[in-house]
């Protein structure tokens, strides 16, 4: 395939590690053969993009192939003509954008947005062109722009070719193969060391939980999180040291991601040992299986009458399909918890889910911020950073290229903002403010990290706390208690 050879030539220039090659190959192998329409010699062809449209949405492969060949022949024969087409896509009217850096600031964002729009408009030639350009400029090993270009390109491509589901599955299985307890542990601990992205939620939630369950002797925490139980050691330590009477803690972890299942056994062993070390009477249960959180019941979770229950959700609500969110929230309430804590990332992919371009822009904005954060927190060559970025790439594909109507087996990733979650939660819960002590704890936590992080306490109508990165809210944490039965609706 000509395209892959183009890639290979690029690889030979730079030093790409082996899994980069693998990654690229897998990416390209996903592309149907008709995609080889993109020409071999970028610089030349850039200026002579044919005006003939190739219908990418034509599902007839043969037709495509034929068409491609035709097109290539045309290209080969035509002489250099300058078109202004390419320059339309780049800043400053440069005709020969060529390779990366000269393309100006934020080239990736512009190209990506244009491409998204083109896909939405079903403008095949433009799509082709842009995809091709992005392909040339993007790299998962480059700077932020290049990385974003690379991963969003992948998603856009999947969207254009309606191969999102397949792509996602491939990416996931690739990730699972290299996933182990050691790698997962290393990853998350390193991430927590360099960035308060997850620890912010942990500290705030633990603070709220400890305060709400103070004095109780039997605690039951239902944990639906994506942080592999790294929240709990500090809670266990707090239980052991702050109270006169150490309560009994039962921790029930609900797994929603397949990738986590394999490491849960190790995690449970460690947790149990650690609890023994701390001297906290401890019980650990894992529940994996329910595709839909709404299906959980008190019995399934092992909730007993004399327990003080807490539900702790970190990055879990967004994985519930949009239609089911209300019922899941009601289910939480039905467990009769003393307090529920939620931590979510601040982005809105759900109200825009029917508007591809808007959703794309939201997505781009959020991940730009995230990637920049990763860039500044980790070292340049960090493997952990790379793994996190790859996780993002799967999320991005899921959000942009996977149809919500299909059953995504609980892999949905439609985030909502704190205010939106609050609206939903107000149907079953009322907010609990974080005490000054907890806020102080969070502030002290943030002090331990590099500059750029801050705590934002919301204005009157909002609930919870926001972690901000460079003044932009990125993570939201909140605590709630169930409404009394008479208060079913709030005004």
């Amino acid at each position, binding site marked *: 395939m000509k395209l892959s050879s183009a890639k290979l030539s690029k690889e030979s220039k730079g030093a790409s590690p082996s899994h980069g090659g693998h990654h690229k190959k897998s990416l390209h192998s996903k592309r149907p053969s008709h995609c080889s329409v993109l020409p071999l010699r970028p610089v030349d062809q850039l200026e002579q993009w044919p005006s003939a449209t190739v219908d990418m949405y034509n599902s007839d492969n043969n037709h495509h192939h034929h068409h491609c060949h035709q097109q290539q022949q045309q290209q080969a024969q035509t002489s250099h003509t300058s078109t202004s087409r390419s320059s339309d896509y780049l800043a400053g009217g440069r005709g020969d954008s060529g390779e990366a850096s000269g393309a100006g600031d934020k080239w990736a964002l512009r190209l990506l947005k244009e491409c998204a729009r083109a896909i939405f408009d079903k403008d095949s030639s433009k799509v082709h062109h842009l995809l091709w350009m992005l392909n040339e400029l993007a790299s998962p090993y480059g700077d932020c722009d290049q990385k974003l270009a690379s991963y969003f390109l992948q998603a856009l491509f999947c969207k254009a070719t309606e191969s999102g589901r397949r792509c996602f599955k491939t990416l996931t299985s690739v990730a699972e193969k290299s996933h182990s307890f050691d790698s997962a542990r290393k990853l998350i601990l390193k991430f927590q060391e360099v960035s308060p992205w997850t*620890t912010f939620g942990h500290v705030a939630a633990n603070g709220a939980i400890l305060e709400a369950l103070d004095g109780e002797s039997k605690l039951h925490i239902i944990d639906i999180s994506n942080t592999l139980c790294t929240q709990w050691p500090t809670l266990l330590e707090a239980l052991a040291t702050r109270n006169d009477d*150490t309560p009994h803690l039962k921790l029930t972890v609900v797994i929603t991601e397949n990738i986590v299942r394999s490491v849960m056994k190790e995690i449970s062993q460690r947790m149990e040992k650690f609890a023994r070390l701390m001297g906290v009477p401890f019980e650990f249960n894992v529940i994996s299986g329910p595709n839909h959180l709404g299906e959980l019941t008190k019995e399934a979770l092992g909730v007993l009458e004399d327990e003080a229950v807490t539900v702790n959700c970190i990055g879990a609500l967004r994985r519930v399909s949009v239609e089911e969110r209300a019922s899941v929230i009601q289910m939480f309430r039905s467990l009769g918890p003393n307090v529920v804590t939620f931590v979510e990332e601040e982005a809105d992919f759900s109200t825009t889910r029917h508007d591809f371009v808007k959703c794309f822009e939201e997505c781009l904005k959020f991940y730009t911020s995230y990637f920049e954060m990763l860039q500044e927190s980790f070292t340049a060559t960090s493997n952990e950073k790379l793994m996190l970025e790859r996780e993002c790439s799967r999320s991005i594909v899921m959000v942009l290229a996977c149809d919500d109507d299909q059953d995504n087996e609980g892999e949905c990733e439609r985030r909502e903002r704190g205010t939106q979650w609050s609206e939903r939660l107000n149907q079953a819960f009322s907010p609990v403010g974080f005490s000054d002590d907890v806020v102080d704890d969070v502030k002290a936590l943030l002090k*331990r990290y590099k500059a750029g992080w801050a705590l934002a306490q919301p204005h009157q109508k909002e609930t919870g706390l926001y972690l901000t990165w460079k003044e932009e809210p990125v993570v939201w944490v909140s605590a709630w208690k169930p409404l009394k039965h008479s208060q079913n609706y709030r005004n």
Partner: protein
Amino acid sequence: MLETMAEESISNGFIKNPVTGSNPAVVAKKRNLPGTPGKYPVYMIISAKFFSFEDHLHGVLMLCLTPDPEAEVIALSPKTLTATNRFLCEICGKGFQREQNLQLHRRGHNLPWKLKQRTTKEVRKRVYVCPEKTCVHHHPSRALGDLTGIKKHFYRKHGEKKWKCEKCSKRYAVQSDWKAHSKTCGTREYKCDCGTLFSRRDSFITHRAFCDALAEETARVNAASGMHSLAAENFNYQLMGNPLDTVMPFSTVFNPISSNDEAVDQTRRGFSLWMGQASQGYDSFGKSTLQEIHQFGSLNPGSIYGDPMVSTSNPPVSDYQLNWVFGNKVSSGNVEDHRLSSTSLPFSNVKENGPQLVSVPSLFSTQQQSHQTPAFSMSATALLQKAAQIGATSTDTAFLGSFGTKCSNSQVQDGNKHSDLYVSNTPSDLENSANGISTLNQLQMYPAKRRRMQNEDSGGGGGGGETRDFLGVGVQVICHPSSISGWK
């Protein structure tokens, strides 16, 4: 009238302190000041202004036990206590924080010579009680001898924590505590057994929980840590009074027979005690105790655990016994597989198998294994804190030496006695021989260990008392000299 009543001294014949809302009787006997406990008359001045009549009566009629018979018990109101200018000039009413400052000021008034003199009265030692009714120190028998001390106590316990550490957000009610903490905050480094250094406590904790070193360590550590922590608690118990009563509930900790949750809890708490100490002075302590434990384990392979183990038909248990008998180290081979060694000896089986593992040397073993006395309701931490309030603040290593010898003397008899009881109570086959031999050895090892533990912990525990860091408290647990007599 109240004053005259107060002026009377109350003589000896008295009753136990019916202090409500304070600690269980066993603890109340401890004193917060060094000195021999006893019953002494007390001379009380309780101003009617601050206490109700009932209170006053209560105070007068009660037999107050203070270490110093002549001590004057001062009860200040919260307002007075917190007032920063306690010393008032009678001439102009100006307030001063210190008496000396007031004196200096008074000189300036050019008083006639007579008035310059302080009104002579016997300089009596003054002790102060805490004005907070629910507080332990509210009672004259638990008064503190130092005004500054009672002030600090009042702020710490009952005051608002106004001073906050910037770095770690810890809060303090007393400024000096806060200052002391700020000096050391962030300077301490935490070292995990795997060798990694942390400057932040929370990342250390999280790392520790997932660290590979944890898996192995708990195996070895638990083996003997149970002895340490429970030994520590045991000292308290036994020293406090009726050993029979106290040994019993305490040693139920060791009896996970019917997987009594309470016993298990206490086991765990006991463990936390030790581990808490470990985690603070992690580096030195952890390592050295591990070495000790190894040593310990290998020296007396069969002694401690061999005998008291009630052998059930569980094969793993007997394997374990064999292991011990043949002197294998616990951590040999695959730690995870070996049921008993993978986690703490007394504890793991409670959870996993439920075999009858009584890993107590006969010294501490219960006479009534089958009796699960649920009387014990306090956690290890609470116990230690209370003990700390009562017990000596200084650790007395000499004591331990003497304790060791004393123990060993009386030990043998006890050992035999226990072993007899064992035999009678537990129908299953026990290795009786191990009993007598082992206990002596164990005891002699104990003092050594305790000593070492203390030395390492004193650094870590210092200054922690007021913030109720049970690590600090733990250090103070080591037995009060007077308690030797209580030990059988």
